């Protein structure tokens, strides 16, 4: 009897939970799962759209073969430089936002004012306004020209990397503009580290330098990876990036195939991040 009642309560709880999650699940099935399956379906077909009907002809992997092998210019000439660019932008964004978050966490007069300013990118960076600013040359640093760094780059760095490095340096300010949300995440993460630990380390005579490396940084590891993931996702889905703008309504079949190829690249990056995280997490907790 007792067992029965507990079972009942358990089912009741499950029904309650299901009621709460139902709208989201419904939305997921309609607006995510269905289009996802459909685009996979289209990527294996030649899609012809007429006024009233849509015709599909099964062509197997032809779209994929075309993008990956036969006509690789799109993927290799536009995607690879972009990947190299992101490979440089991501560490810069992470280090910069960590630095700023730690500075903003200190107590000093005028902190509120600085915080208000530093969250401005959160507002602007998603919009077209930033594109406008890049077009005006607001993104570049004038040091580049005065020190003739371009010239040295061309001279000493292998060609495949010189271009992306130049581009990142040229839009360095832009990189800073993209770190708004990351600063927020680090700042919020920093609040979760207990003040008692800092107190204890201070009493034990540890300086700020040691405190940073021994307490703050290990404590922030989860947030570093959260930010890494966020940055990867954000950079790769930004509408102005080269691949994304190629996914358009001119050819449904091959666009879908391209989107899937692109998605699998992103997914492998994120999985790599998660795998790294689990390794690092294990290493840190092992040391403790």
């Amino acid at each position: 009897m007792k067992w029965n009642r507990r079972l009942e309560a358990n089912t009741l709880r499950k029904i309650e939970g299901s009621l709460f999650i139902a709208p989201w699940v419904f939305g997921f099935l309609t607006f995510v799962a269905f289009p996802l399956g459909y685009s996979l379906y289209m990527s294996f077909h030649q899609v012809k759209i007429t006024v009233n009907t849509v015709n599909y002809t099964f062509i197997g992997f032809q779209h994929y073969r075309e993008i990956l092998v036969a006509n690789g210019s799109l993927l290799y000439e536009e995607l690879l430089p972009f990947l190299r660019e992101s490979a440089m932008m991501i560490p810069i964004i992470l280090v910069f936002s960590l630095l700023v978050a730690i500075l903003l966490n200190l107590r000093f007069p005028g902190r509120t004012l600085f915080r208000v300013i530093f969250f401005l990118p959160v507002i602007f960076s998603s919009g077209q306004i930033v594109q406008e600013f890049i077009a005006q040359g607001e993104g570049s640093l004038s040091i580049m020209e005065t020190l003739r760094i371009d010239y040295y780059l061309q001279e000493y760095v292998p060609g495949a990397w010189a271009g992306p490095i130049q581009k990142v340096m040229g839009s360095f300010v832009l990189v800073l503009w993209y770190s708004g949300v990351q600063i927020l995440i680090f700042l919020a993460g920093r609040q979760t580290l207990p003040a008692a630990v800092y107190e204890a380390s201070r009493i034990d005579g540890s300086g700020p330098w040691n405190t940073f490396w021994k307490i703050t940084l290990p404590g922030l590891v989860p947030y570093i990876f959260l930010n890494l993931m966020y940055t990867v996702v954000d950079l790769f889905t930004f509408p102005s990036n080269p691949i994304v703008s190629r996914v358009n309504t001119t050819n449904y079949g091959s666009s879908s195939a391209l989107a899937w190829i692109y998605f699998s690249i992103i997914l492998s990056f994120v999985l790599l991040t998660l795998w790294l995280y689990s390794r690092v997490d294990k290493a840190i907790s092992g040391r403790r």
Partner: protein
Amino acid sequence: MKIVERGNDLAARLQEDPKLRGGLELLRYRVLGAEIDKGLLFKTLVYIILINVAFIYIKPILYMVTTMVKDARNILDPSVIWVPKTIYLGHLQEAAHMLNYGKSLLISIGLASSVAVLQVFSCAIAGYAFARLDFPFKKLWGALLLFTFIMPPQVTILPSIMLFKEFGWLNTFLPMVVPALFGHGLKGALFVIIYRSFYSTLPKELDEAARMDGAGPFRMFFRVMFPIARSATVVVVLFSFVWNWNDFYFPSLFMFTAENVPLSITLARMAGEMAQAAGAGEITVYAEAIKMAASFLIIMPLLVVYLFAQRWFIEGVERTGLVE
């Protein structure tokens, strides 16, 4: 040799004279501090870094504002870089006219705020369910939530267009609004994650206490759980509003031929028109100023919202609503 001797002499005197020594130690204390991060030197360094970066963030805005109030004489005058000699508001009028400002502004406000309100409720419900409730296949749905967050919208955009076309929703606001009703829409997965992480930090006793008092699950959510998540809500509302306001991608694909479009689209259309005019040989010194005026008109409402909301926003972020 003499210098060394004199130095030694000075050092010896220092050792002896307690007053001088005290003064020097006070100086050292002031400059370097008892710990590094308390001293004057460190503080100056912090301010230098912060002011520099703040300048980088503010400069485009300053540039925008100063450029848009320059008339022809000020634009051509090489001695005017930042501060124009006279203030001219004609560009603002021109840009407002080209953007169809009155109507587009209302559309943008309506669209962004309705999506924000819907997303707050639907994402709070979903996040609450993920954090505190039990339902079948919870792990699987959690993984799919992460998947939704990672997935670029481009993968599903084409079938979505076809789907919405089937519903007859193209060129309306429904493709943006309806997914928000179900906790999706622009970055919906991120908002669900924010709420989930907020709710999972609350103590278990809260549910139990409310349950003891006889509150049903829905009453408990709307009376206790939703109001308690105020700090997360502020963050989500602001993000959702701002991102939907700025979003260009979805509206450009779902309402490409619509008559009533939000500001982000009218800006793009305007830029296209101006590029065409420039291509046709119409060279004007005003193009820059008008573009900046248009940008200002689009950003200004966001700035106003942000200035009002920033206090709660920063507080909300600090209450760890944002993190996992």
